[in-house]
């Protein structure tokens, strides 16, 4: 309020003016007008009905107490509900327990709240009170005292004078947290993570099996247009099942061989139109679980990256950059699908050392 700063309004004054000399350049670009409208002061107090009529006040009192009594009823109801609505694992019993217990507690709490607020609004003194503000900064005397404390401290310790002590102390304090940083190294195992990220459970001759049952898949089971969620044989018995699965999950589909656009060097990666691609999105690693049969697109439900299976899982939409890695496959002598090798590039989200 500009008029607070002009010094003409006796009712206002200003925190700033108490330190007039300090604020000479600091009013910034504020326009301090001596012509602004005066603060009219407080509006007249309007009494409430309960202030004027004792009968109304007594009625309000009863109302407030009624809320508090209702709260007691709610609490008792909650305890009763806890006992008479036991849970036996059926959805209905859990619903009842949750509902009646909750309603009782909610009533107990809400009624206390409503009662207290109603009390304060209808019966407690309704006048606004005024408190003066003071500048937040300490008074000059206080600040001088504070400076004196620091000066005495400095003088008596020689902190400013004895530079050798000061500098070595600062050095010691800077270096002392470093052991704590080192301590965190063993949050993870000693080995380098990069080689781990570049290999999966797939290897030459590993059978493709169904997720999650682990039963092997015959090439003849994979009909045109079907899709299989695939894990490597032996994954369910693996010691690090989830870690391996997070890298080795594969999606298997069969397209007409003439629909596939196979690049040089990948001619024998599919088996009669059966193709296998990593299911782990190259964006941030969600499972690319949605296969659209008609368009042969794979969609990641997390961030909507889309991959075109007919073009070796090239990205056609969304934030991902790299195609899903293809798993080279063939069949063994019994007709089961097997991997020709591991993936030829790291699966999943990109990382700094991916190409190293």
């Amino acid at each position, binding site marked *: 309020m500009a008029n607070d700063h002009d010094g003409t309004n006796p009712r206002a004054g200003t925190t700033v003016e108490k330190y007039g000399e300090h604020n000479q350049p600091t009013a910034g670009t504020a326009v301090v007008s001596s012509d602004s409208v005066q603060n009219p002061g407080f509006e007249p107090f309007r009494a409430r009905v309960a202030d004027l009529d004792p009968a109304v006040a007594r009625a309000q009192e009863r109302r407030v107490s009624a809320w508090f009594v209702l709260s007691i009823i709610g609490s008792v109801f909650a305890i009763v509900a806890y006992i008479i609505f036991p849970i036996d*694992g059926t959805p209905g019993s859990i619903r009842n327990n949750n509902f009646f217990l909750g309603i009782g507690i909610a009533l107990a709490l809400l009624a206390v709240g409503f009662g207290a607020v109603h*009390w304060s609004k209808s019966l407690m003194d309704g006048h606004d009170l005024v408190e003066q503000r003071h500048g937040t900064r300490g008074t000059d005397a206080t600040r001088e005292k504070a400076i004196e404390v620091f000066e005495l401290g400095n003088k008596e310790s020689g902190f400013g004078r004895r530079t050798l002590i000061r500098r070595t102390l600062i050095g010691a304090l800077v270096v002392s947290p470093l052991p704590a940083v080192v301590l965190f190294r063993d949050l993870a195992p000693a080995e380098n993570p990069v080689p781990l990220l570049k290999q999966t459970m797939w290897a030459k001759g590993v059978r493709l099996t169904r997720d999650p049952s682990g039963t092997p898949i015959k090439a003849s089971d994979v009909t045109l247009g079907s899709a299989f969620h695939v894990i490597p044989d032996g994954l369910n018995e693996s010691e690090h099942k989830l870690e391996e699965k997070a890298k080795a999950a594969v999606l298997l589909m069969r397209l007409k061989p003439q629909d596939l656009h196979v690049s040089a060097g990948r001619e024998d990666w599919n088996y009669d139109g059966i193709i296998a691609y990593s299911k782990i999105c190259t964006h941030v690693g*969600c499972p690319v679980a949605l296969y659209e049969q008609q368009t042969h697109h794979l969609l990641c439900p997390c961030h909507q990256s889309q991959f075109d299976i007919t073009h070796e899982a090239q990205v056609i939409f969304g934030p991902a950059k790299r195609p899903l890695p293809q798993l080279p496959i063939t069949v063994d002598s019994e007709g089961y699908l097997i991997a020709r090798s591991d993936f030829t590039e790291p699966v999943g989200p990109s990382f700094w050392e991916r190409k190293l």
Partner: protein
Amino acid sequence: MSTSTDERPATSELEPTRGQRFTGWAANYVDERTSISGLVKELGRKIFPDHWSFMLGEVALYSFIVILLSGTFMTFFFQASMVPVLYDGSYVPLKGIEMSAAMASTLDLSFDIRGGLLMRQVHHWAALLFVASIGLHMLRIFFTGAFRKPREINWVIGFLLFILAMAEGFTGYSLPDDLLSGNGLRIIDGLVKGIPIIGTWISYLLFGGEFPGEDVVGRFYVLHILLLPAILVAALGVHMLLLVINKHTQFAVPGRTNDNVVGVPIMPVFAAKAGGFFFIIFGVIVLIASLFQINPIWTYGPYDPSPVSAGTQPDWYIGFADGALRLVPPGWELELGPFTLSLNVFIPVVVLGLFIVVVAIYPFIEAWITGDKREHHIADRPRNAPTRTAIGAAGVSFYAVMWAAASSDLIATHFKLSIENVTHVIQALLILGPIIAYIVTKRVCLALQKKDREIALHGYESGRIVRLPGGEYIEVHEQLDEYERWKLVSYEDYKPLMLRPNAKGRITAGERLRARASNWFFEDRIAPVTRTDIEKPGHGEH
């Protein structure tokens, strides 16, 4: 007032009752050992101004208390371990399924502990409300300029609380180790791995090996129930302390000035209102928790890296980050020699980082532009600071667009649109939305200021048509009384900074930038009505 209507005799005039004697004794006992009477004297009648928007911060505070209470209950039952177990609880569809101990104990808490599900739902709903009310509280502070001197530091502390609340939310969301939370962690893993140079190692250290490992739930548990709450409570304490030191801002109601605080005292009115309000917030959260299901992890199942369901959503406050990831156009990944730079992940992280840094330091930016070093205790009406309000609106739209992007798939399926079109529209809106919001908001603010000025000078249209002797018809304007007018005319006025040489006679580049910024801030302004304007003859007629 009310005491005069009470017909019962004032008890203090009589012999003290047994209760009074006990209270007196107890108060004396405590004071002789703590000198607490000084604190009561200082704070007991402290004044709090009233306005509905001031309760948003209270909602945050009270929902945090609810979170602490319900969370403590759950720690008695939850096992923060990723050791695989075979589920053997009451929920039949998952019987015999392998899952982590964390997931199994969460299911036990839901299906075998009476009130356990209620407490889980109270905790989750309270957490959602906590972050939401902090966000709204921050918007209130921002749009009323309540972050100005001397409250800049408290703004930064409040900002820190907002970040901590989101961190608490995310770590808590990850604990049950269900399919949804596991996918959330998978995305975090991908995000972290996208950080250049150190990303792979940070992920490796965070998960204690390869994703998902068996450590992350235990580690997040310590963060969630110990480290983050400790920092949060400490920051909250400082936040409250500074509130007491700075005293609350107030709106420019008649009688209120920059130098006083007008309102109700802590004892008894504010204590009753605020204490009652705590119970109301608690009650509302319990009511919601008893009526509406949230995070039914048993329908998602335990975490498995292979399946995912379509249309899954993070908790609302993580949405803006997830949306930012979705909006990156295809192909943002570089290969720098042997290294891979995932711009599709790193750019959103950097943009969000910059965005929140700007939010955190905004008070200092505005203080530098205005050069205003005075203390401000009167909350601005947003219209009276058009540029700030427009900046805020632009920021809100930027956030809102990213937030909407997190539901792009649901928007597409719900309205039967193609996901590609939805994404492209949201991408365009991310740039255009804030610009449009800025321009529109600024114009609306100025228009509202003009309207205020018009009403302050000429009054309201009364609807009463009068025919003058000469045959002319006029509508009579009703003048405002001085109290009503005060609300319209009492605001700070600024004009753009003049570029002047400094003491050395030089014009620095910094000053040049500041003059330009000041010009941008204050070029369009409606000056407040002055006394001369009101007294000028000719007003209040036609």
